[in-house]
């Protein structure tokens, strides 16, 4: 069973909710797919047991064979190759590692080489949980391949919680696709509402059932409540704005660990999730 936590808008509290859930479910697996800015480790403080380098494939030209026929440039849909007649220049930022240039080179002058695109870390959480995250290399543009690898680190049968990057583009899709349920974390502002609608659009397209958590809940922004009610959406939990929650978070603490009421809210959320997913989640 895999549950994703996403939001559309950044900073609504995805990581706090995802990490808190992982914390109240002993033995669960937390996977931080926000590889551009991974923060889950700050809250869960895992004991890191393994760090691996992740690579993407890029073409490597054998100039002893290459006759600059231009075929590789023609088949590259991403304009990542430039024929300078004395050199085939690669803009590796633009390379999507599709392998077409290697395959179509008539002289077989292209092989593929590894280029680092980030790190993948494995760790243990003190409630017997497992922890994984990815760190995109600074300057690397495409996050989706690394997200895919980080997600696939765990292949067992434990409950998995995936912390998605913000937004509604390919990175978010890479993190939430094929998960059985998605928790959308939003906040009581027009920004939160606008981006919630965008995120719902994505989930509907890829057929992922979802429920909503309103973080920093403020009843005076009634438009959000109204939207959820009118569209018959599934409201899982409202977390009120509280200075003590903000303060614990600011220090890198996990609210579920130190605030009893927050822990209770997370357990309530878990109960609802069990119901939503027809009891597939096992919880001691």
């Amino acid at each position: 069973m895999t549950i994703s936590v996403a939001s559309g808008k950044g900073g609504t509290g995805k990581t706090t909710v995802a990490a808190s859930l992982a914390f109240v479910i002993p033995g669960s697996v937390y996977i931080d797919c926000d590889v551009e800015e991974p923060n889950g480790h700050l809250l869960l403080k895992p004991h890191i047991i393994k760090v691996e380098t992740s690579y993407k494939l890029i073409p490597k030209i054998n100039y002893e064979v290459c006759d600059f026929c231009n075929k590789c440039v023609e088949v590259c849909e991403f304009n990542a190759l430039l024929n300078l007649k004395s050199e085939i220049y690669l803009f590796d930022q633009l390379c999507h590692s599709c392998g077409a240039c290697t395959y179509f080179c008539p002289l077989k002058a292209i092989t593929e080489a590894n280029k680092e695109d980030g790190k993948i870390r494995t760790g243990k959480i003190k409630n017997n949980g497992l922890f994984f995250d990815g760190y995109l290399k600074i300057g690397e543009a495409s996050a989706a391949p690394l997200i895919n690898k980080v997600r696939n680190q765990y292949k067992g049968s434990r409950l998995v919680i995936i912390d998605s990057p913000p937004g509604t583009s390919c990175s978010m899709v890479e993190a939430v696709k094929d998960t059985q349920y998605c928790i959308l974390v939003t906040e009581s502002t027009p920004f939160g509402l606008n981006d919630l609608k965008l995120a719902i659009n994505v989930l509907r397209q890829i057929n992922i059932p979802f429920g909503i958590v309103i973080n920093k809940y403020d009843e005076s922004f009634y438009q959000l409540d109204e939207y959820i009610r009118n569209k018959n959406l599934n409201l899982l939990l409202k977390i009120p704005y509280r200075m003590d929650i903000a303060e614990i978070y600011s220090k890198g603490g996990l609210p579920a660990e130190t605030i009893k009421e927050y822990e209770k809210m997370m357990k309530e959320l878990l109960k609802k999730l069990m119901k939503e997913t027809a009891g597939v989640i096992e919880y001691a």
Partner: protein
Amino acid sequence: MPDGNYKQIAVLSGKGGTGKTTIASALTEIAENKIVIDTDVDAANMFLVLPHYINAEYEYFGGRKAEIIFSRCSQCNLCESVCRFNAIKDYKVNRQNCEGCGFCVRVCPDDAILFYASKSGVYSECELEDHSKFYYAQLVAGEGNSGKLVTEIKKKAYEQAEKNVKWIIIDGPPGIGCPVNASLVKVDLVVIVTEPTQSGLHDLIRLLNLLKLFKIQGMVIINKFDINIHMSKNIENYIQSEGIKLLAKIPFDINFVKAIQNSKTIVEYDHAYKDIFNDIWDKIQKALLN
């Protein structure tokens, strides 16, 4: 290519939700002779607080997608074997997974795969109340190519820039990946909005490393600094040790939320902030014009 006589300022943060849009929209209230661009193309918010008319809308075709014509397909499955994105199964293309590389299209011996241009978004050219131009976009849900869309909007903005334009103010996306890299092209100064949290500092450091790589000057605003004064001090010390200037410290104030809820910028909603943002804008101008 920007060839005008303007400077470009991008507001970024690394971490989401620190207040990029709030700060960027306040700056647009102060700055004159400007163009404003929201480059957070997959979750644009600036249009919610800046009153504007839409003058034109443009469709954006970011890439192509493959589609197998069943009647021509001899089911050799070569396409599936070469596709590295798990986008082909049972002689059908999963549009969501298709990277648009065209490998399958070229490899197909039956000429059975179409490669069609796919609409990945729309972007709008708008006019603000002071007649400045304002651009924002809407990526099609779940699309890739967000960086290319950012590049396309910026190009459009440069083309349309009139001679008197002195500033381009960019409200950027969170993170440090593709759309951020595209937002940073040709930028003169980055205003980094951070918050006094562990995550804020962690993400600030990654963003500063990116700026170092691109050799772009950054200045920091610590937003909601009084939520954790100790952490604010840590951030101040850190940026000082890196030779980065502090632009301002802004307190936590419920009026920031109220301003957004009322579809207004903070400067318009609470006039007390006018002086604060005037001061920030002065410092930005000084940093760029000296």
